[in-house]
């Protein structure tokens, strides 16, 4: 059977990546020029569950336990937010500046939920660790 700590640590790493991507989106909400040209593009992660089909036992299971994993980090290709700023160095010939299509408020709430998710995984790891140490105490005479 799967080691719960293994599943939870992939949960942690996925949650951390999610926080990093959201932080990058917030930090670059007003970035109008990037190395690739054009404004910054909002990034998002594609998360998948990888079923754990290691042993014969788990193959017999009607359902399997799954480990979260990040399949890809994708860019949002929705059109940029055009703001009329004729004096801006990145303004086009009509005086419009392309800003990334990022809603800072909704990104902040996503960030909060991702950090709660990280905490939930930490709590679960702490619980599993406590369970294991209790089992180890069976052999200790007090």
């Amino acid at each position, binding site marked *: 059977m799967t080691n*719960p700590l293994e599943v939870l640590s992939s949960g942690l790493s996925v949650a951390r990546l999610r926080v990093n991507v959201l932080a990058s989106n917030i930090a670059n909400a007003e970035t109008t020029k990037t190395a690739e040209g054009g404004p910054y593009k909002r990034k998002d992660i594609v*998360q998948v569950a990888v079923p754990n089909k290691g042993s014969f036992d788990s193959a017999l299971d009607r359902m399997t336990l799954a480990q979260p994993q990040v399949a890809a980090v994708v860019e949002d290709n929705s059109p940029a937010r055009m703001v009329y700023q004729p004096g801006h160095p990145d303004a086009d010939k009509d005086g419009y500046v392309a800003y990334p299509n990022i809603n800072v408020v909704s990104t902040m709430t996503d960030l909060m939920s991702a950090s709660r998710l990280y905490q939930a995984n930490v709590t679960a790891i702490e619980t599993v660790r406590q369970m294991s140490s*209790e089992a180890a105490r069976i052999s200790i005479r007090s």
Partner: protein
Amino acid sequence: MKIDKLLDPSLAGIEKAMDLTWKRNQAITSNIANVETPQYRAVDYNFSTELDRAFNVSDPSNQIKQTSSKHMDLSSESGAHLMPDLSGATKPDGNNVDIDIQMGRLAYNSSKYIQAANLIRKKFQILSNAIRQVG
């Protein structure tokens, strides 16, 4: 006298309870790790049915009959009792894990595990006291 006569017969039941709570813990942790995974469906062990089965394994009427020795042994414990957990509502991304239910279950289930571990330890303590306090 066999040594296992010294041990309480309920020890096997407690051992089984630890085994099952550990397995249920695996299902719960898998759900917690996949709260944000699109299309992930929550899983759970049906704990009480499993435990009943574990305690009644000595009762022949509860055992599945094997008509050939080549058949798979289904009476013994197998891991194949993971089932869909429908406690949470399905979100727009197809995921149905309710983090609050799962965290509550994690706390409940781990305390059950710790209780069982403590019980086993106590039983061995009682036995070792009985052995040592002679004369």
